[in-house]
């Protein structure tokens, strides 16, 4: 048996590539992570299995209210002014187009910021972070 090196992983012999989370394992869905910036009443971003054909508008209308509806600022969100990123890159969603058409591949991270709605903080103004 010979020593092998994969990146900086040193092993005794072959070490097959076994990805535990390939898209084909999710019953037709893909994983999409969603995060509302600075709203830390929700401890961490969400991980959702969603069909790639889901229109972006349906994500906003049907999914986000379930996730975030209990936050007092949620109802005040102006979706026209909301800023979106995909893996840190700004994008302007088209509500009629699907996740797939937005290039939101499996395990994409969507973060959105709602100017003027910065979460519940005590005596602090969170730092404004431009995307």
């Amino acid at each position, binding site marked *: *048996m010979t*020593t092998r090196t*994969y*990146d*900086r*992983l*040193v*092993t*005794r012999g072959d*070490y097959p*590539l*076994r*990805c*535990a*989370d*390939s898209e084909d*394992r*999710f*019953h*037709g*869905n893909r*994983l999409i*992570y969603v*995060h509302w*910036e*600075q709203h*830390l*009443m*929700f*401890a*961490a*971003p*969400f*991980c*959702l*299995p969603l069909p790639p054909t889901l229109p972006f508008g349906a994500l906003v209308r049907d999914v986000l209210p*379930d*996730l975030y509806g*209990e936050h007092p600022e949620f109802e005040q969100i102006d979706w026209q002014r909301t800023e979106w990123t995909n*893996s*840190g890159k700004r994008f302007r969603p088209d509500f009629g187009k699907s996740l797939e058409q937005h290039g939101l*591949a*499996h*395990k*994409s*991270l969507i*973060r959105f910021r709602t100017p003027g709605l*910065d*979460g*519940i*903080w*005590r*005596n*602090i103004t*969170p*730092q404004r*972070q431009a995307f």
Partner: protein
Amino acid sequence: MDTRVVKKKLGLKDRYAAMTRGLAWETTYQPMDKVFPYDKYEGIKIHDWDKWEDPFRLTMDAYWKYQGEKEKKLYAVIEAFAQNNGQLGISDARYVNALKLFIQGVTPLEYYAHRGFAHVGRQFTGAGARVAAQMQSIDELRHYQTETHAISHYNKYFNGMHSAHHWFDNVWYLSVPKSFFEDAYSGGPFEFLTAVSFSFEYVLTNLLFVPFMSGAAHNGDMSTVTFGFSAQSDESRHMTLGIECIKFMLEQDPANVPIVQKWIDKWFWRGYRLLTLVAMMQDYMLPKRVMSWKEAWEMYAEQSGGALFKDLARYGIREPKGWKDACEGKDHISHQAWATFYQYSHAAAFHTWIPKEDEMAWLSEKYPDTFDRFYRSRFDQWAGMQKKEGRWFNQFLPMLCQVCQVPMMFTEPGDATRICFRESTYHGMKQHFCSDHCKEIFDDEPRKYVQAWLPVHQIYQGACYPDDINPASPGDSPVREVLRYYGVKGGADNGDFGTSPDSRNFAEWCGARLGETPTPGAPK
């Protein structure tokens, strides 16, 4: 008359040398490299195994005698605790949740450590290192057993302890300790010792044992305290093994230094992330507090760890890369973790609660720069919600870090209002991390971490449903089905403490014992 033959009796040092050196030999039927195939491939160069300084000179007969005496005492205390209904003497039934976390998340690690040390105890070419690892392997098995016995008494009276092993293998937050150890023992023997004996036992162990054991003492749990005393003398041997192993590698060949440094960077950070659970336990789950996580970090990590890395500087070793970020985290991680468990408590196997007013005041005092500014408002908001519309639980699953497997709840260094995100792409697939250091661990060995068993992803794949559920359409409450698979009873094993059977029972038992009515406000 026969002449009496005086048998020469060896001293302890000689007996130990006979056991560790005299019983080993150079093999001739098979080459040594084939008999010991694991201790070269990591790249660590050992020129002379005889330079290995035995960290403790304990022969098997001495070990047997000594441990046997300790355990007789321990079991006498456990027995007395049971006969005297010791569970009624604890400070508050909320305390038992710290024990639940211990039996679910720490005790199984003792068993993993037993297996890991048994493996390296076979694989090192040097007999001294093998014997040290074998002794530790037996220690770890004993700890696993004595912890299980000490805590099993509580299982008769409280919920959330009946299936710790199944949970360890499946439940989301327990994948944090589980993956830590599986990562360690799937490495080579030198990496394993660097991970467990050095980074965990030597650098961080006080941060695990002191909070749990002093916490037990402060909260009236004498059986756990006695276990702690019993384990303590073993722990000091384990720490010695950790530092000896590091110094031995560093002294044997200068080419070992960068390999060891990389492991120290990696395993310090992995151990630190794992200790998030302890930080939370210490600041939120002990009704009578010992010291804050921040104080413990300053005492055991910053002071002792700082001195240690100064000492290792002569070998060319510097402090771990994540050190600065870990020191900043002392003000934050316990609050972030409790906030996470508070909202996902319906999917865990222990109870959570909003800290009482005097406990909030303690947190403000201990965390003057952060608690009021960043965290109190969340608890106030949830307390308000609980009054108005009932206890709030977060019904949607969180995103996890690919390496430490903790939900992505840690904030950006320097800004506690924003979650920290890091990302890599491997074979075309995105991978997400909670920190620079978890990303770096992944980027070094991506092939290892793309196979991580991330509980949230596994739930969506269908690995955590009972057999009668179709994973493609798990129905209107996937969480309910997952709990059924876990064997966790909603509301009894988890959820809010205030409405739990644990809370109600304890109030009634104490009331009955003291001849008083149960604590007012306890639900019927």
